[in-house]
């Protein structure tokens, strides 16, 4: 039997590149392709790199010519980066996914789709269940642009999956990732000289270690399941405790002043916290991961707390900036 053929979008990101490296070493995959406008860092072996913008309608022809049976969608932008407006982010997220879907429609060989989405879809709410399960995506109104993006992406893929019952479409909902080689919002937050917090709030934060983020993606490629699956490390950590372990000084700000203070920090070039992240700092969020362990058969190695301590131990001295890896095309 011939091996599987897989295409990974967003291969220029560290998780995308790491997944490509792992799959190209797996004899079960006869063909690995990576789509991105960025070059992946590090060595890439037999992966065919396709230099194309995911928003470009031309990718439909490119993808159908590869005749892949598995698609890993790893190009969802979680926050506008340097020089990337939120409009561009919305474009990459929604128009990119739309182009990808139309490419899938023209690729009859497609059997599995794995989307690296976000648990941001649940939002951060004071009265939320302490652990969201996969059925609770629309308990609350979508409050931020990123939430609406994620919801729209999920809808696109869910509709596609309904039209094609023979395709298994896995929507992974990731909690924020942390790790020494990732430049994520949490990592930046933990390296601020002073970390702004909401006065009188100490939310429960749940994270996933970068190794587990990658392993979960690989596990879903190997064992695709239908529908949404939460991805997070076990347990939670209080924000105050996380900052204390990191040896950071917190700056408690009363609710109405939090926005202006953070905006001021942004203008000073210190911090850029997305609206989603701000809500997370106020109300927190945790998810139930029983589907990940029972259906996908993957158990994260790092608890949330272990992910934080591992990150702190390996990023070097406190205050040092995390290694920069490109996150946006």
């Amino acid at each position, binding site marked *: 039997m011939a091996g599987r053929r897989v295409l990974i979008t967003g291969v220029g990101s560290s998780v995308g590149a790491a997944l490509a490296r792992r799959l190209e070493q797996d004899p079960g995959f006869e063909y690995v392709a990576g789509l991105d406008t960025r070059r992946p860092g590090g060595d890439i072996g037999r992966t065919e790199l396709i230099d194309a913008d995911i928003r470009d309608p031309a990718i439909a022809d490119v993808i159908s010519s590869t005749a892949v049976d598995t698609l890993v969608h790893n190009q969802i932008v979680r926050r506008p980066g340097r020089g990337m407006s939120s409009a561009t982010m919305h474009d990459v997220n929604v128009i990119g996914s739309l182009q990808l879907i139309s490419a899938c429609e023209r690729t009859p060989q497609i059997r599995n789709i794995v989307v690296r989405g976000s648990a941001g879809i649940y939002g951060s709410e*004071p*009265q*939320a*269940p*302490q*652990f969201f*399960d996969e059925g*609770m995506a629309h308990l609350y109104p979508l409050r931020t642009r990123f939430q609406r993006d994620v919801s729209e992406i999920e809808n696109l893929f869910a509709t596609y999956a309904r039209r094609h019952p023979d395709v298994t479409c896995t929507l992974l909902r990731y909690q924020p990732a942390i790790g020494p080689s990732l430049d994520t919002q949490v990592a930046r937050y933990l390296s601020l000289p002073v970390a702004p917090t*909401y*006065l*009188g*709030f*100490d939310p*429960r934060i749940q994270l996933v270690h970068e190794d587990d983020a990658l392993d979960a993606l690989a596990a879903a490629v190997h064992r695709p399941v239908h529908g949404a699956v939460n991805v997070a490390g*076990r*347990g*939670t*950590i*209080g924000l*105050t*405790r*996380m*900052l*204390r*372990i*990191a*040896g950071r000084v917190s700056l408690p700000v009363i*609710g109405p002043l939090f926005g202006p203070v953070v905006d001021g920090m942004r203008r000073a070039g210190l911090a850029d916290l997305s609206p989603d992240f701000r809500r997370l700092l106020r109300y927190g969020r*945790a998810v*139930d991961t029983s589907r990940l362990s029972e259906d996908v058969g993957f158990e994260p190695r790092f608890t949330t707390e272990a992910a934080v301590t591992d990150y702190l131990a390996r990023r070097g001295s406190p205050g040092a900036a995390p290694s920069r890896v490109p996150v946006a095309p």
Partner: protein
Amino acid sequence: MTPTGQIEMAARFLAALREGLDAGAELPDALTRSAAVLPGDARERVRAALRRLSGDYPEDEWGFDEEFVRMVEPAFEFLYERWWRVRAGGVANVPAHGRVLLAANHAGILPWDAMMISLAIQREHPLPRYPRFLVLNWAFELPYVSVAIRKLGGVVASPHNASRLLEQDRLLAVFPEGVKGAGKPFSERYRLQRFGRGGFVEVALRTGAPIVPVAVVGSEEIYPKLGEAPLLARLLRAPYFPLTPTFPWLGPIGVVPLPSKWRIEFCEPIETAAYGPAAADDRALVLELSEQVRETIQGKLYESLVKRGRAFV
């Protein structure tokens, strides 16, 4: 220790701290070392506080912080023994292991009664454990209050949270009267409100947890609600805004609960496991069990009220 002795001790502590800092030690380090001159328990307290400052304290996935609970316990002990002179009965009816649902009457938003139930179990039960309790949603939007409640074991009242806690074989306290109970006027005290749609029974059936009815006398006199200000409630987006003889007229002092005399009675458990999880959808059974719990608590309340006698002296 005499007051002069305490001052002397403080002076020695500060001198040692000064020495440490002069020798170039970092503040936390210097504090830890100078704590050595303090007597045993004070030294332990300084060390514990420093350890907490470095983030070294346990919090479970719900945010429950057992160390914090033990730190604030003396304050609750005072309320239990001196302020409210709590007497607890039937504590042995609370199973020592596995999932258990405690269902109690309730008044007020602040979960004083939950803390007293917890303390009654800590003090009187042969194998004590800390109960978790469901708290009215609104409390979780409040700064500080929300954090304190979470650390003490409070959880947003929702069937999802209740099921998960019980599936983890924990002891869970619920107040089935909900917001109707919390906003009871003083004249209605100890008259149990309707138990909603019996959601707590559904959760108990689904998880097979026995229900232990708990009757709390005393808690409904601590904030005698005489009226309310609906406009203020709307403004604060609160479920209601109570007016008591002291609140809000006296400001923060109005939040001090009145020193009523308390009795907490734990009744015999009502088993639910035999019905099976599917019975959770049987409306008739749910309402019947809900009514049974309600009647048990109501009966016990009247009994305890008579036994207690006058409310405040």
